[in-house]
């Protein structure tokens, strides 16, 4: 390259190549969109016609509220529902805790920059994929068959799925960690696990916590859904209300679930503040 003009044409060529790659990627996404839209019968006309139906259904789930007595009547089963909701929360909490622990342990082996061998990394990643791609409902059914109905099956099913998805996210967080501390700890003679614990974990922990809180919210919702296959909790009650066309009960239970998730989000924000920069809890 002799002159600025020569450089500019080479640069322009490089930019053109990049644009071509981008366009190719865009074309693939557009094609996939077209096929998916066709297969799932995504039809704008049907969408537009169906929208009022959604509003109608939702309106039926909320009774006319003119007084406190109306509100009391709407939430007639509050005591029982809160108990069931607590059960669902317990399922979700245990599952998140177990899933996070397993994910955190495996995330270092699954990280490209930390795994000690290609085998270790590949094996861990495939296991994590298996754990998260099998639908939770399938795991729940398997565990119901193995351990009988009840919350235990729900906890296990959600824990396996959580470990799978969190493991992938955590490993990517680890891959983004700065390698400077890793080098300096290895130079002190620290072992692999010690290096992971002291060089990478302190960098990754705030993100681990963020993802776990998000997963907890998702698990509260999922724990409600898998109640449908008989693992207890508020989900079983919601399923019953939907099947019996008890619209007002459906609305009341949904409102409780939404309030719970909001509460989790608010608490989570506080927790994250404690761990991230300048927070009180050192990892």
């Amino acid at each position, binding site marked *: *390259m002799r002159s*600025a003009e020569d450089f500019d044409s080479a640069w322009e060529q490089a930019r053109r190549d990049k644009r071509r790659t981008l366009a190719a990627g865009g074309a693939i996404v557009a094609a996939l969109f077209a096929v998916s839209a066709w297969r799932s019968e995504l039809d704008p006309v049907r969408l537009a016609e169906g929208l009022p139906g959604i509003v109608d259904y939702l309106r039926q789930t909320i009774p006319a509220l003119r007084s406190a007595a109306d509100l009391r009547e709407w939430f007639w089963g509050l005591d029982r529902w809160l108990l069931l909701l607590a059960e669902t929360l317990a399922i979700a909490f245990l599952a998140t805790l177990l899933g996070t622990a397993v994910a955190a342990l495996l995330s270092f082996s699954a990280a490209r920059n930390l795994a000690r061998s290609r085998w270790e990394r590949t094996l861990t990643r495939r296991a994590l994929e298996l754990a998260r791609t099998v639908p939770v409902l399938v795991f729940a059914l398997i565990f119901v068959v193995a351990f009988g109905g009840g919350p235990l099956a729900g906890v296990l099913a959600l824990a396996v799925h959580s470990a799978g998805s969190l493991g992938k996210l955590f490993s990517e967080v680890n891959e983004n960690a700065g390698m400077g501390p890793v080098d300096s700890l290895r130079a002190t003679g620290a072992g692999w696990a010690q290096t992971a614990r002291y060089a990478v974990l302190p960098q990754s922990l705030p993100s681990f916590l963020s993802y776990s809180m998000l997963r907890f919210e998702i698990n509260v919702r999922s724990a409600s859904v898998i109640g449908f296959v008989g693992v207890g909790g508020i989900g079983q009650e919601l399923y019953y209300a939907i099947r019996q066309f008890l619209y007002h009960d459906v609305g009341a239970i949904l409102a409780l679930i939404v309030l719970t998730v909001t509460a989790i989000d608010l608490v989570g924000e506080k927790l994250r503040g404690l761990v991230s920069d300048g927070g009180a809890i050192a990892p």
Partner: protein
Amino acid sequence: MLGDRHGELRLEGLGKTFGAVKAVDDVSLEIDSGEMVGVIGASGAGKSTLLKLINRLIEPDDGSVTCGPLDVSDLRGKALLEWRADCAMIFQHFNLVERLDAATNVLLGRLRRSPSWLSLVGWFSREDRLRAARALERVELLDFGLQRAGRLSGGQQQRVAIARALVQEPRILLADEPVSALDPRSAAAVMELLHKINREDDITVLANLHDLELARRYCDRIVAMRAGRVVFDGSPGRLDAAAIERLYRREGDAPPAAADWTDARKTTVA
């Protein structure tokens, strides 16, 4: 002094406090257009804060900055962004966008002069691209233009940063510890380059430097800071053995630093 093409840069009673520490304390300086000034002093003496007060990456608590008729402390919105484009900055750790190639990093220096909706979709005029290529040529890195910035050596990255500063066509170049992270040879090359830019383009250069020898060799004027205050201001010639001795003795002294610390606490609590 090369005359008053853009007017002088004038700092008056400039001050900035972080928590209990007075990082910059009542600093007044007049810098003529075209000067090359080395700011020396220990870490924590307030050199970095001083530079960032000039391009308003940090807002001052007290005092003012003016450049000719322009009152920098007063600038808002677009006018402030124009001012930042006019006084380019380079950093100790280069601060390039490591995932973009070197040439694109240089091109980013044109952002303020490009229509934002076009630059956001990646379009830059041929004129700007040529300007970037010529800047790379000038820092002798044209052959590395298509490499990712993160792959270049430290000295090369700093030269890319200087090329980016050049395409801003600035009046002033603020260099915050530009050679502290470099080996002596790369450091000398970067200082040569800054000196050349100062002479050939008539760009005022303000460089924070750790290395007293580099400051003496390349700068017309030396400003020494300690605990946020200017303790020496003059030509390298006036920085004689006695002055250096005084400077180092003061910097090495623990008691005055501790006294300053308690002073700063009192003033901020009160």
